């Protein structure tokens, strides 16, 4: 009973326990911030990724595969699959207007041909179109989407982005348009609050030239195809890699530009120079396109149905694809290829290695910081050692009035636990405040000290993850309490083993 009373009094009347609690708080906050940001980054990557590119993909890059609509029809029959859509992906070059002079600046981009409505069902495309009416507000004058005079224009731009078309205001004729990532042009200034403001030109009013390079089935370049297209809207996923590279185009248009649309060809068994008997004598047989090459898509993106995870959906897609491939023997692919063709989104080539690296990096950084935080054990130990020395006479008094060795030891362990609880709670609160405001803090550090730690070009996201997960907080706080109690153990044992008579005579 006396332990509770003394713990309370020692906590509130000494500077040293305050120092120990601060040490625990800082260590706890440090680990929690690192874990929240790095773990949050990974979680964000995993959560965002599937919503941007679907849960499962069937992909055969460059060459593509035909009969994709038939495949989609079969796919959506499965209960595991909610929706599926074909896409075409290719590298491209986008010439964008510059803030410096009249020259256009080329950007290497990832061109994605989509059917907007279907693509939206799989990836929530429409939700990510940036320019949209958000309702007039005088408080948010920085945000163009809230300006009263922009509301009608924003509604039209949203509609145009959703359909990948732009209507001529004079003639009323619609023409195909593209949607580009909000970081592609670098003409948008992002405020610390995360609002994009056009620095000079408003991109959706502009017209840019997009060039792509169609390849033959043997991988040989055919000829550069380019189109001058208006920008219907801009796209923001929050993943820097996507926002700085992606350009969306109508599916049919990109298919046509990449020579992936339906075509007729000369049969493969045609022999050049063959002579046949014509009505007016012998004639050389002319090549005639009698075969039809079906249109192709490079990807089919699939969204898992509610209640099914990506792995279950992947298994279902594999089964469907296997059957599909057997029905189309010879062209384009055999069933043995399915392992490389059907994958869950996080196994997408390039992304898979990146996610694995992030997982390892997160684990490594966490282990390092836990090691660093282990110094709290020694810090608390040193502070408690000194406190036991200071409290030697008190220990003698307690023993004289009947306190046992275990009781005295428990007093200091309990005291360590109390400091751990106070320190961990304070550290948790500090971490929560910092993590919750990490983006404004980061902006402030950048503006005042020029210190930008989070580079979106490296970390994918334009914003630092800013959420503390309760389970993580619980583990870190528990660790803080444990470390503190561990630090108190040896001093507590020393207190318990003190000779009470010597302790009473201690000066």
């Amino acid at each position, binding site marked *: 009973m006396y332990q509770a009373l*003394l713990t309370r009094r020692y906590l509130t009347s000494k500077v040293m326990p305050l120092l120990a609690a601060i040490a625990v708080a800082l260590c706890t906050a440090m680990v929690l911030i690192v874990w929240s940001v790095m773990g949050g980054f990974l979680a964000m990557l995993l959560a965002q990724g599937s919503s941007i590119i679907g849960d499962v993909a069937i992909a055969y890059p460059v060459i593509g595969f035909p009969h994709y609509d038939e495949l989609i029809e079969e796919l959506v029959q499965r209960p595991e699959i909610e929706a599926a859509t074909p896409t075409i992906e290719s590298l491209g070059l986008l010439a964008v207007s510059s803030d410096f002079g009249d020259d256009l600046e080329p950007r290497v981009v990832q061109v994605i041909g989509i059917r907007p409505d279907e693509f939206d069902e799989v990836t929530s495309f429409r939700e990510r179109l940036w320019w949209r009416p958000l309702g007039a507000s005088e408080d948010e004058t920085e945000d163009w989407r809230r300006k009263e005079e922009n509301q009608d224009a924003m509604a039209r731009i949203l509609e145009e982005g959703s359909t990948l078309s732009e209507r001529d205001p004079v003639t009323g004729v619609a023409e195909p348009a593209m949607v580009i990532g909000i970081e592609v042009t670098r003409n948008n200034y992002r405020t610390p609050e995360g609002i994009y403001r056009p620095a000079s030109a408003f991109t959706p009013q502009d017209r840019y030239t997009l060039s792509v390079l169609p390849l033959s089935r043997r991988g040989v370049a055919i000829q550069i195809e380019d189109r001058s297209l208006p920008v219907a809207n801009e796209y923001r996923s929050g993943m820097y890699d996507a926002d700085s590279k992606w350009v969306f185009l109508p599916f049919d248009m990109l298919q046509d530009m990449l020579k992936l649309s339906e075509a007729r060809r000369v049969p493969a068994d045609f022999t050049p120079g063959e002579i046949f008997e014509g009505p007016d004598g012998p004639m050389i047989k002319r090549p005639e396109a009698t075969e039809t090459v079906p249109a192709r898509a490079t990807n089919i993106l699939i969204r898992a149905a509610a209640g099914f995870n990506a792995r279950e959906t992947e298994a279902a897609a594999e089964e469907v694809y296997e059957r599909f491939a057997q029905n189309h023997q010879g062209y384009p692919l055999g069933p043995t290829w399915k392992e490389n063709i059907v994958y869950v989104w996080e196994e997408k080539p390039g992304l898979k290695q990146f996610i694995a690296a992030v997982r390892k990096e997160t684990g490594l950084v966490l282990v390092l910081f836990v090691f660093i935080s282990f110094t709290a054990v020694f810090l608390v130990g040193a502070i408690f050692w000194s406190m036991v020395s200071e409290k030697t006479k008190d220990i003698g008094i307690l023993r004289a*009035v009947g306190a046992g060795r275990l009781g005295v030891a428990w007093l200091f362990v309990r005291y360590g636990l109390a400091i751990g609880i106070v320190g961990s709670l304070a550290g948790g609160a500090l971490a929560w405040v910092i993590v919750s405001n990490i983006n404004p803090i980061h902006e402030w550090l950048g503006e005042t000290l020029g210190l930008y730690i989070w580079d979106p070009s490296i970390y994918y996201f334009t914003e630092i993850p800013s959420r503390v997960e309760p389970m993580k907080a619980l583990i870190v706080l528990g660790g803080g309490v444990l470390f503190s109690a561990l630090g108190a153990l040896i001093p507590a044992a020393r207190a318990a083993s003190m000779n009470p*008579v010597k302790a009473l005579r201690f000066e």
Partner: protein
Amino acid sequence: MGALLEANNLYKTYRMGKVRVPVLRGASITLEAGEVVAVLGKSGSGKSTMMHILGGLDTPDKASSDNAASTVMFEGNELGRMSGAELDRYRARRVGFVFQFYHLLPELTVLENALLPAMAARGRVKYTHERTELRARATELLSSFGLGERLKHRPAELSGGERQRVAIARALINRPDLLLADEPTGNLDEVTGAGILDALLAHRSEAGCTMFIVTHDPKVAQRADRVVHLRDGVVVPEGQPEAV
């Protein structure tokens, strides 16, 4: 009156660096229940060491020079055979200590200091159960020592005499059978010391408390039932010069 405590042939040697300093050299004493015994002797004669051994805070050396065992019997039970936990209980319930320098815990209030042995002697549940009675007893004791208005004060806010009265209340809180006081007036002026002695003796009748008072002060000795002299670690037999 029967013997409450019987200490026989106590030996104790301390090490001071490489030197062995014998403090008790075969001291024996018997304390009758309810008596007040004053122990006089020069500095280093072993008075405080004897008090610590009788109170179970220290142990006598196991093998004495004449091969007779050092024993302390309390109500027929030998302290040397008690476990650590039993000795803790002995100190908590049967013995009360009063020290020359009060030895109060500075972080606790007057009332909490007085209640400290009550907390140490009881588990959390039992203490909580008896808390009201114990607080009433501590308040009553402190009030009887004129400290009824100072219950929430810290030791640093009290005079020396007041601190010693808190220490006496603390020693009496568990109604001990044996009160061991080490120079209880040694750090106080004559008037305050007399007051402290009055307070101490006023409670002698309570539950037949036996008092063992270590002192230099002949005035304290005069008020005891019996005076014992210690010289060179041995109790001087009655009738010898030091005993007069």
